[in-house]
């Protein structure tokens, strides 16, 4: 089996999400990469150093600059003539592109895999992670998105892949990129952070959230997350959301502050190594999954914790 892994990048460097996908792909077959972007030769050179990587296909074209699915999917579909599996991180970019590729190939995609059980057999979460399905594909080609937290990251260095330029259809003319509002933060990224401090609805409002959660996160060098309730209430932007419909995280330590623990939220963080919960309601469901629980008023406990660490 020859796999083609989508390299997640911003045209200047390889994003961490790629590394877990390389591990998943290596369990399926040979690992080849695709770097599609604009002015992204540096990304391809960097990607070629990932341990275990074979060929790195570099598709450098202005049409691929923003990974518009309309432009990128036909490129991938073309490359799939000589590959058996397209393996993609389950990021918003991957989830946007992969089904478009699958439909072009007339393949039923396997979404969000947690493990590779056989050449065409995988496990994946259904019902917000309340059940795990083992599925086997009968399609000739595979299109797979990978849940990053379920696989160890491949080493970013030590590999000796070869970069080879490829080209595909250019701009489809169907869509164009207008702009983006990407939050700049000094803190680590949620999906790759070792420690996450998350706040819930109990934080009252945006100012209180900022004043309570951020100092603790900064003290710990942690990323900041939030429950859906906190995001819906406007305390923090949507990209902070941890949960089935937000980001799936699995840090070393997850500190849930004022989060009750709705199924939806638990689905996004229950694979964290250690879960710490601070909540004044001792019956909150979050305590059923927490390794360490503190029943306390967060407005007293969190500043005290921040001060004593």
């Amino acid at each position, binding site marked *: 089996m020859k796999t083609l892994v989508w390299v997640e990048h911003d045209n200047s460097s390889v994003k961490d999400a790629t590394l877990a996908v390389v591990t998943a792909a290596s369990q399926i077959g040979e690992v080849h990469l695709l770097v599609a972007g604009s002015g992204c030769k540096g990304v391809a050179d960097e990607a070629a150093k990932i341990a275990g990587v074979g060929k790195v296909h570099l598709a450098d074209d202005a049409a691929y600059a923003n990974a518009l699915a309309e432009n990128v999917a036909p490129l991938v579909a073309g490359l799939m003539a000589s590959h058996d599996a397209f393996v993609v991180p389950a990021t918003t970019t991957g989830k946007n592109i992969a089904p*478009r590729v699958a439909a072009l190939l007339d393949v039923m995609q396997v979404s969000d895999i947690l493990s590779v059980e056989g050449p065409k057999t995988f496990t994946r*979460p259904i019902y917000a992670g309340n059940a795990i399905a083992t599925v086997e594909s009968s399609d000739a080609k595979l299109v797979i998105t990978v849940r990053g937290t379920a696989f160890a990251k491949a080493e970013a260095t030590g590999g000796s892949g070869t970069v080879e330029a490829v080209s595909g259809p250019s701009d489809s003319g169907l869509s164009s*990129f207008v702009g983006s509002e990407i939050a700049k933060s000094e803190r680590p990224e949620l*999906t790759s952070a070792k420690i996450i401090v998350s706040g819930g609805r109990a934080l009252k409002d945006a100012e209180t959230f900022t004043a309570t959660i951020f100092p603790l996160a900064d003290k710990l*060098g942690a990323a900041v997350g939030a429950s859906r309730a906190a995001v819906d209430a406007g305390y923090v932007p949507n990209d902070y959301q941890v949960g089935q419909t937000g980001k799936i995280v699995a840090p070393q330590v997850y500190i849930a502050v004022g989060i009750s623990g709705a199924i939806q939220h638990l689905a996004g963080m229950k694979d964290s190594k250690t879960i710490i919960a601070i909540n004044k309601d001792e019956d909150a469901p979050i305590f059923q999954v927490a390794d360490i629980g503190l029943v306390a008023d967060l407005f007293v406990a969190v500043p005290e914790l921040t001060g004593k660490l």
Partner: protein
Amino acid sequence: MKALVCVKRVIDYNVKPRVKSDGTGVDLANVKMSMNPFDEIAVEEAIRLKEKGVVTEIIALSVGPAKAQETLRTALAMGADRAVLVQVDDGVEVEPLAVAKIVKGVAEEEGVSLIITGKQAIDDDSNQVGQMVAALMGRPQGTFAGEVTVDGDHVIVKREVDGGLETVKLALPAVVTTDLRLNEPRYASLPNIMKAKSKPMAIKAAADYGVDIAPRLKTLKVSEPPVRSAGIKVADVDALVAKLKEMGIPA
């Protein structure tokens, strides 16, 4: 212009799914079923576009068992104009690829300019149909939409992406998939629920669109996720600090 909204009948989002003891799936007998929440947002968005005078007619489509008529009636009660049910036998699950082919068939038959659907269904969590429809029809896609604005023969979609927001401009006809914060769906009023009963609903079959719904994926087993058990409770912040220090935090 005409809009097509796709809705799926799924387990109600407040119900905790139970895995069947024989490992063949999730027990749906006597479980409350509702419209997929992301699809409710899709219906609401189409109605708002109609209220703005952009959309002239809203067709709601579902692929599912006879009972999916209830889901379509809900869409009609919210404000869709008419409905199409592509009916399958009870217990038959139609995979996203086959659903997408059916959606394409209906969309072409009806000549719609905008297809709106939820980004994913909360049962199989596939997140595929919208993107697949767009691919099969050779049209653009605006996935995970947080804001939708129709501007002449284009639609501008602000998308919720991992790092924040991204805006794309798509040539119509186009496919939009909805994210959570696009809007807050309305509740159907009693008079509208009554009115919905007399709105037209066509019952079709997958074969009417020449679509083979035989599954490509075989579910070998469905199991419970690993259970995480409750740990300890600490008495106060000092005890928590001590525990963290044991773990080497802060480093």
